[in-house]
């Protein structure tokens, strides 16, 4: 169906004992970066798992609809949904170290993720793997790929996970607080990387975070989740017009006014655009 956004969400979710999300409504357009912010416990992770149809594995239950290109994921049988995970929707998790299987080499991670959606494992995978490692600025060689997750740094692990999420060129990337486990320098690098991906490949990104600074550096639009529902949904430029107390609270945590950060972003993106143009 034309005219549909890439992702349209309207759902309720919760666990056996308590409801977590009520009537959460979201829309994400092609090529857009939407920042979903909220304090801890607001239901961000629950929302992410609901989108991927993974909440039942954590003992939760979702009702409503998650429409990807017009198709409702919540009514799909698990087989069909599995075929979409990783291929149409890429996922970047919160804690990179625990998200990689400690017993497997990095190469094996790529191979398994590849085989989940492709029949033939061969040069196609190898080419894609090395291209992705270049893309996320990791050493693209066999020595690095032979390492176990315990033998790389947290920042490298997060880059590996981003590369894994990009493996099948999904049209939607969902990142669940991808920088929260990282040091400030690595945080900035990862945010830069995600911004570059969006600019170069037009990948749509749902960027979930409690860190408003990184959201302002990356997103076009921002949705505020508070106590299980979306209380604010606006363009980042209009952030100063936000009324809801939860949004004001978040804005209060910023070290400098939001306008300053946005001005800095437009400058730095021009700068990096200039440097890529020159390079």
């Amino acid at each position: 169906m034309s005219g549909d956004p890439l992702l349209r969400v309207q759902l309720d979710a919760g666990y056996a004992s308590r409801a977590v999300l009520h009537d959460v409504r979201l829309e994400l357009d092609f090529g857009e970066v939407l920042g979903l912010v909220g304090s801890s416990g607001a239901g961000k992770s629950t929302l992410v798992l609901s989108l991927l149809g993974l909440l039942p594995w954590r003992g939760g239950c979702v009702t409503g609809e998650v429409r990807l290109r017009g198709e409702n994921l919540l009514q799909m049988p698990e087989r069909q949904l599995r075929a979409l995970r990783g291929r149409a929707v890429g996922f970047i998790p919160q804690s990179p170290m625990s998200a990689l299987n400690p017993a497997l080499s990095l190469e094996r991670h790529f191979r398994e993720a590849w085989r989940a959606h492709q029949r033939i494992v061969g040069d196609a995978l190898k080419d894609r793997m090395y291209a992705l490692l270049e893309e996320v600025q990791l050493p693209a060689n066999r020595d690095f790929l032979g390492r176990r997750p315990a033998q790389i740094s947290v920042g490298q692990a997060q880059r590996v996970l981003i590369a894994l999420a990009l493996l099948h060129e999904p049209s939607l990337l969902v990142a669940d607080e991808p920088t929260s486990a990282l040091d400030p320098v690595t945080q900035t690098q990862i945010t830069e990387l995600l911004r570059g991906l969006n600019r170069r490949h037009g990948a749509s990104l749902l960027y979930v975070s409690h860190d408003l600074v990184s959201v302002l550096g990356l997103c076009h639009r921002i949705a505020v989740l508070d106590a299980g529902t979306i209380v604010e949904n606006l363009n980042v430029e209009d952030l100063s017009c936000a009324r809801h107390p939860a949004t004001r609270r978040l804005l209060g945590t910023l070290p400098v006014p939001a306008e300053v950060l946005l001005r800095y972003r437009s400058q730095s993106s021009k700068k990096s655009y200039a440097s890529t143009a020159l390079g």
Partner: protein
Amino acid sequence: MRIRLLPVWLLVALALGASLIVALPGASYAYQDREHTLTGASLQHPAGTDELGRDRLVRVSAALLLSLAGALAASALTTAAAAAIGALAAFAPRGVAWLVMLVCDAFLALPWLFLLMMVRSALPLQASPAHSAAITFLVLAALGWPACARAVYSGGLGLKRSDWIMQARASGLRGAQLIRQVLPNLRPLLLPQFLVCVPAFVIAEANLGALGLGIGEPLPSWGGMLLELDNSALLFRTQWVYFPVALLILVLLLLEAIPVEA
């Protein structure tokens, strides 16, 4: 060669030596030298002979090989079964898991000595010694898995909730791929289980043999040779009747001394 693995190397050396002795021309664990019964060490029989005049060194060597091979095979079998059943239960729906654990409990509650007697008595009297050996170790393997399966089950449950399994699901991995990813993570759990089972099975076989329920004559077994010790009249004839039990204790010590996290 690391010093930590010394027990393993000593066991390998023992097994090699035993194989050499058994393979020597003229060595037979069943041949009865009627001229020399229940003797001490001599040139012809370095560790003496038993009541029937059979060479004790050859018999002990054969028993060592048989019991080690049997215990290793049974242990591998029981650990593999435990891994498969435990992992299956951990990743299956809750009802299936409950049923599997119930079967485990039932197995643990079985009076296994009684079961062994039943199985042995159900066998025809003329069951060949080789059959009796195979059955003994098979029964041990069949009884060994439930405790280990419970450990694998709880370990698997922990892995099932882990972040990397969620990540694997989010990447669209198939069910079979998930199970294959879990197995290497169970290694730290399975290896100690395997190593604990080996000496347990060696001693179980020895005990069963001493009760006359183990490996049938003329195949040599620890149990069969320990039977000699309950006849105090024989004990005064030669000190060499203690040789099998001394070697058994040494083998068990070595098996217990293998570092579990190797």
